[in-house]
């Protein structure tokens, strides 16, 4: 058997196996933890790229765990969406690991650093596992590994507020997991299978059954909590505010994996015609997302803590992804999935910049940012670029995905959703331009002598800021894999 046919399992196992070795390395050679994590993540990034190229050339890949054929064995399906998610996840986590080298020395004590890298690698592996699995119960297991590692990461600093935020996240997240488990149970009772492709075939005759509808409701609510869709987002702002700045960057990926699970549920388990026409679940999701976008933007305007503001902005932008899915056309789905990458890159850049500011000055209140633009020109330049991308100004990447979603709303005959996007861009501009205004034109209260952050923190920032522009001009690059992904999901 050729090695390339084993790539789907290798890409997941590299971070996981490294995670299990990490405590030993942390016990013996503390200095090498970071390098070890970076090498493992770089390796899985390269393999993800090879996988994506393989999928683009040869079509979706199927891998049967231990050689058991589905529906009995566990199946990994690397389709277009799965390969795309693997590339996004491994790219962002690689940058997080690079950034953590210097940043984490200030936030965490020496004993906690190996634990931090262990959790980071576990999280990466399980996120990739959740995006490529073809088995519903395996999806649940991957979701649990990623949830438990992100509960622990959120409270890793050990401060009182971080512990409470982590506990709150844990209670809400565990309820979501129970709902998902109950939903899977309902689907298993009805169909007698756990394989997604098999379920897709067996479900249509059962669509009128109340059990299946209950399963759909339970799974949607469960995954919406994991995705932090607006009325269920309460865990997110507290958790983001009190975690080290590199953790929210990972968590923007966690909530995106929740959105991917919703995509899988709506289009890979249920049939598109059922969730769009028979039970208008996508319409319900799109209106929920529209409310989320507006309300989260309003919340973000009233914040003075930079991390809390970015947290509410995350709630707003994950709702864009759901909005794209909810429109339910090929264009909308493409735009929504494109926003997964664009938001991960942009929000990653913003959180990295906020981390660099906090690392150097310890300031978190936006009103005290005066004069930082001259002290840290590169960091604030990147921040400005990413902020403009969040607002959605061309030629940044934020414009491309917002444009796609708005265009999809117009062509689908739902212009009210396009108005929501425009309005939210305006609200985004209010809270981001306020920060830019203070940093460049504000007068510092007292002169502080600071310079740029160390290079290991600066390079990821520059790289992500450059990606904001590159993905703006070169939006064709992700779209080459996203167009077939949307077509495959909608079955056209």
């Amino acid at each position, binding site marked *: 058997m050729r090695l390339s046919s084993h790539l789907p399992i290798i890409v997941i196992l590299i971070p996981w196996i490294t995670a299990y070795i990490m405590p030993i390395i942390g016990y013996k050679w503390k200095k090498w933890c970071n390098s070890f994590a970076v090498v493992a993540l770089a390796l899985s990034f390269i393999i993800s790229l090879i996988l994506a190229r393989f999928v683009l050339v040869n079509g979706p890949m199927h891998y049967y765990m231990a050689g058991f054929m589905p529906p009995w064995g566990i199946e990994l399906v690397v389709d277009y969406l799965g390969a795309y998610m693997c590339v996004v996840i491994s790219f962002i986590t690689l940058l997080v690991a690079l950034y953590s080298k210097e940043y984490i020395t200030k936030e965490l004590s020496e004993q906690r650093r190996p634990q931090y890298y262990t959790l980071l690698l576990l999280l990466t592996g399980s996120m990739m596992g959740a995006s490529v699995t073809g088995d519903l*119960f395996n999806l*649940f*297991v991957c979701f*649990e590994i990623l949830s*438990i590692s992100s*509960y*622990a990461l959120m*409270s890793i600093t*050990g*401060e*009182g*507020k971080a*512990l*409470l935020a*982590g*506990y709150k996240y*844990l*209670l809400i997240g*565990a*309820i979501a*997991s*129970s709902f998902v*488990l*109950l939903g899977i*149970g309902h689907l*298993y*009772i009805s169909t007698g299978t756990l394989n997604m492709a098999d379920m897709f075939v067996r479900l249509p005759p059962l669509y009128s059954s*109340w059990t299946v509808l209950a399963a759909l409701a339970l799974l949607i609510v469960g995954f919406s909590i994991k995705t932090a869709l607006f009325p269920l987002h309460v865990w997110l702002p507290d958790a983001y505010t009190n975690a080290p700045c590199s953790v929210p960057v990972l968590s923007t990926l966690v909530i995106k994996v929740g959105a991917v699970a919703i995509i899988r549920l709506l289009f890979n388990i249920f049939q598109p015609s059922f969730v769009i026409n028979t039970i208008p679940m996508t319409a319900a999701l799109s209106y929920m997302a529209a409310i989320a976008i507006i309300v989260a933007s309003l919340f973000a305007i009233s914040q003075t803590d930079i991390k809390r503001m970015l947290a509410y902005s995350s709630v707003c932008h994950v709702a864009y992804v759901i909005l794209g899915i909810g429109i339910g056309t090929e264009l909308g789905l493409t735009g929504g999935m494109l926003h997964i990458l664009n938001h991960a890159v942009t929000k990653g850049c913003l959180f990295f910049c906020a981390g660099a500011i906090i690392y150097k000055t310890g300031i978190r209140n936006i009103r005290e940012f005066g004069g930082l633009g001259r002290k840290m020109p590169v960091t604030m330049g990147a921040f400005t670029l990413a902020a403009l991308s969040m607002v959605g100004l061309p030629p940044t990447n934020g414009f491309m995905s917002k444009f796609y979603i708005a265009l999809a709303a117009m062509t689908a005959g739902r212009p009210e959703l396009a108005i929501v996007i425009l309005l939210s861009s305006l609200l985004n501009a209010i809270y981001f331009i306020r920060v830019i205004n203070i940093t460049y034109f504000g007068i510092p209260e007292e002169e502080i002598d600071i310079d740029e952050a160390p290079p290991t923190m600066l390079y990821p920032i520059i790289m992500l800021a450059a990606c904001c522009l590159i993905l703006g001009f070169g939006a064709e690059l992700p779209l080459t894999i996203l167009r077939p992904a949307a077509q495959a999901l909608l079955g056209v």
Partner: protein
Amino acid sequence: MIPIEFEFLLRHYNYWTSVVLVMIGLYTMIVKKNLIKKLMGLNLVETATFLFYISMGDIEGGVAPIVAHGEHATDVVYINPLPSVLILTAIVVALSTTALALALVIKIYEKYGTLNSERILELM
């Protein structure tokens, strides 16, 4: 739509039990102020889910799914082992969630000296 009859309710008492348990668990999590009691509510919800799975795999008079030999081998009814296997995994997951939650509760108690969620909010 299934007509709801008394007999129908009685025949599916195992599912109703798990529904009631989920409700009690959610109520406990919302109403109780103590962080440990909230965790107990969560465990109730999880246990109810396990009960739901285990009871759906069971058949009255069924035996464990080990292939029977001998003269009565053909009329043996086996239960479905898959839900039990799934729930073994889910129990491990629930256990690790509970362990992490208890570790967090210990740390919170060290910091604030109380487990009452309202008192902690006052102290913050």
